[in-house]
Every structure is written in C-alpha cells, then in structure tokens.
C-alpha cells in the first residue's frame, strides 16, 4: 500500500501541476460549457410556461433547474480523457513506453487524472452547489438542502467516475479499429449523453425505454448521482442503484483488463 502510494503519488502531483498551468484555458472552457446549461434552462423555463400544471413527468421547474446544473456538474466531475489518451498512444506507438515501465498502465492514467480533478473540482463544486441552493431556496421559499444527500451524491460520483474511466479505457482500444478518434469520441459522447439522461431526464422517455436505460451502465454515470442528490432515491432503492454502480465499475474494470491482455498480444508498434 505504502509502496503503491509512493509510486503513484507523483502522477497525482503531475496532474495537478498540469491543470494549474493551463488554468485560464480551463476557466474559459467551463464558462463555455456553463452557457449550455443556460440554454437548457431557458428552454425548460419556456416549456414549463407553455405546459399545463406545475409538474411535468415528476419534475417541477425548480427541480428541473437543479437537474440541469447538477447534470452539468456531474458530467464535469466524472469526465475522463482516458479514451483519448489510450487511443493516441495506440496510434502513435508511445504505448510501447508504458509497457516497459514497472507500473500499471491503467493506474498511471487514473492517478494523473485524479490529480487534474482534485484541483478543478474544488473550484467547481462549492460555488455551483452553493449558488444552486440559494436559487432554489428563493424559488421554493424554503431550504431544501440535505447534507446527507450531498455526501452520498459525492460517493456516487466517485463510483460514476470509476465506471466512466474504465469504460473509456475500453473504448480507447477502439483505436485499433477506427483511426479517427475525434469522430468516434464525438459519437460516443453523444450516445452516452442521451442514455445517461444528460440531454433529457430519463423519466421523459416512454416507460419501457426509460426502464431499460436505467439498468444500462450509462444511467449510473450521471442520472443516478443526480437523483440521489435530489433525494428521489431513498432506502432500498438507493442501495439498489449504488449496488448497480459498483457492479458496472467492476464490470468495466474487468473488461479493460481483458482488452488490455488481448491488445498487447495484437499490438505491433511501427518504427521505434
């Protein structure tokens, strides 16, 4: 354990330094992405004004606002560039360098990214949650915030991040087949966005479809943590969905190991 820490701590550190260097760039990126939330906000605002009644598929407008911004927060927190990184290395052959080093291939990525995230997320979570709760309190008239939900939400995000990380590692191996990672990545993000409830809450979908999506790993990425924060999942249901997250995390971890073994056998690096 101690040894592992000594090996991987420099990767965390490197990740943090990387983010600190490009912080201005990151701020503009976040600002741009937040704009997308405001577009959604205005659309939903108009939708609720145009619809009859206060609730729509179980959502009130204040809940929808919380949903939009939390989906954004969650997807930023669990976001992983692993697919990109693996794919690039497969393509340009630098994966060979990783093979000769006595560290776990996946773990180096994981810790470097964690370093990245530690810095960025502290700057994002606190102001966003605080701002959101202030707005919600004003809209609803009473404080809805629950510390317990927030804590379980953060745990659920960690699980979601692990699922996403290992899923992306698996996806990165697609570079063996598709050379154009940028396009493939866009397709993946689009599908994941839809299936994970990031584009529209799953409860707006036809019931059977929604139920199927709920079991698929993608709902575990984004929908589950947000529902936990909003207090929709309670008791046994909560445990079920957390368990499902653990299952998918283990599943993709195993799959990434398997793909790694297969790929290394197939790998032929050009040049050198």
């Amino acid at each position, binding site marked *: 354990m101690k040894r592992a820490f000594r090996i991987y701590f420099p990767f965390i550190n490197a990740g943090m330094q990387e983010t600190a260097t490009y912080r201005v760039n990151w701020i*503009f990126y976040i600002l741009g992405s937040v*704009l997308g939330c405001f577009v959604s906000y*205005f659309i939903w605002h108009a939708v609720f004004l*145009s619809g009859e009644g206060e609730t729509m598929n179980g959502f009130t407008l204040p809940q929808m606002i919380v949903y939009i911004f939390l989906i954004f927060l969650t997807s930023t927190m669990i976001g992983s560039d692993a697919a990109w990184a693996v794919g690039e290395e497969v393509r340009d052959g630098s994966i060979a360098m990783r093979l000769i080093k006595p560290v776990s291939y996946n773990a180096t990525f994981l810790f470097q990214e964690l370093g990245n995230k530690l810095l960025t997320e502290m700057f994002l979570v606190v102001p966003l949650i605080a701002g959101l709760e202030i707005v919600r309190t004003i809209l609803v008239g009473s404080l809805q915030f629950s510390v317990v939900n927030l804590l379980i939400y953060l745990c659920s995000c960690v699980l979601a991040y692990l699922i996403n990380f290992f899923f992306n590692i698996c996806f990165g191996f697609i570079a063996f087949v598709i050379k*154009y990672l940028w396009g493939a990545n866009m*397709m993946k993000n689009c599908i994941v966005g839809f299936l994970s409830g990031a584009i529209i809450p799953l409860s*707006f979908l036809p019931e059977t479809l929604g139920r199927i999506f709920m079991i698929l790993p993608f709902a575990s990425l984004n929908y589950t943590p947000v529902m936990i924060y909003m207090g929709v999942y309670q008791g046994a249901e909560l445990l079920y969905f957390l368990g499902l997250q653990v299952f998918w995390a283990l599943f993709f971890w195993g799959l990434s190991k398997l793909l790694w073994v297969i790929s290394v056998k197939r790998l032929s690096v050009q040049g050198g």
Partner: protein
Amino acid sequence: MKQIKRLFRIHRIFVAQELKRMMEYKGDFIVGVIGFLMVQCSNLLFLWIIFNNIPSLMGWSLNEVVFIYGFSLIPKGIDHLFFDNLWAIGHFTVRKGDFDKYLTRPVNTLVHVMFEKLQIDALGELVMGIALVCVSLPQLSIEWSVLKVLLGIAAIFFATFIFTGIKTITAAVAFWSKRSGNIIYMVYMFNDFAKYPVTIYNEFVKNLITYVIPFAFTAYYPALYLLTGENPLYNVGMTVLLSAALMSLGVFVWNRGIRAYESAGS
C-alpha cells in the same frame, strides 16, 4: 481581378489536396459525418420529446422551431466546412510554433489559413440543416416570392461570415496569448442560444445575442423574416451589416496580431 482569380486557383489546389487526403482515410470521413449527424439527431429527439408534453413553446409550433433550428445549421455548417482551420490556430498552431510557415508563403496569412483545410465532418451539420428546413417547410404556410428566396440565400451567405468573423477575432487572440482555443469555444457556445426562438430568453440574453455576440442574426432573425415576411430591412439587413463589420474587425485584429506575433518554440 487577377488577384481574385489567383485566390480561387489557390483554393482549388488546396481543396484538391484535401480531397486526396480524405480519399486516403475514407473511414474517418464517414465516422466524422455520422458523429455530427448524431449530435444533431439527439438535439432533435430532445425537441420532439419536449413537444410531446406541450402544445407549443411559447407560441412557437414544433415546425417553426425545427425550421429555425435547421436554418441555423446551414451557415454554421458552411463556415465549419470551409474555415475550420481557425480553431487550430487558437488551439495549437501558434503555441507549437507552427505558424511560422504561413509567414513564409506568398499568400495573405489569413487567406492561407482559411483555405488550407476542408472540414468534411461539417457535411453532417449542413445536410441535417438542409433536411430540417426541407421537412418543416411544407408544414408551414410561407408565402414565397423571388425577393424572399434571394434574401434567404443572401442571409445564409452573410450569416456564414458572422461565424467566420467571430472565429477570426477570437483565434487572433492567440497571437498575443499563444493559446485561445477555449476562448473561441466559449464565444462559439453562445451560438447555442441562437438555434431557438429568442423570445424564450430574458432581455439580458436576448440583447447579448442580438447586439454583443450577434449570433441571433445567423438564425433567428433571418428565419423570422422567411417565416413571416416582416421587416426584411432589420432581419436580413442587420445580418449583412454585422457580417461585414465582424469580418472587417476580424481582419483588423488578425493583422495587428501578426505584427505582435513572436514565434513560439525553439
């Protein structure tokens, strides 16, 4: 005149080169186009599901919203198809010191950058935009006249250069800061507001996308003119005016940037 002829010839050569490259990687081309198509499809699915829950969006019917959305994709797609290389300037060309090559060529740097790449992925957006306009048109009772068709085409042409102008200005920031990719991204994201009728926004956002970062003139206002026939002088005229203004500003900032540019790298 002779110079313009020369530019067209250069463009042809660059495009031919790009097409050759593309034929080499046919798979990439298909993946990219399908990727962009899928992004648009998921947005449409979103609209469709929303409209299943409400009769109209603050008075706008699904067909009208789809028409505006589709219209917005056309100039965006054209700009994306031809002038996508500006993104690269902001993201890495300047930072990696690769910009030097443009300075050594006997062509205007901005022209060279713009002509160099053809982003075929954009066909996904362009095809989708045209398809949406075509699908929604028969359901809408629009009175067509020759003038309207001509103004519609003009609006698409000039709206394209609103995108290009804004991209040029923000990309040129990289000449001072070495890296402006995410500034382009941030400003570009305002375009998302313009895909929907601006009446759903509050005054602040409405003014912002009309006067400050005038993406509303790439879609909503010209589309409004086509839908209603109202006020062509403002709805289309402003598109022309802003497009010229932003493009001129873009050229100005770019040239200042070139003068301030110090090569990066070793």
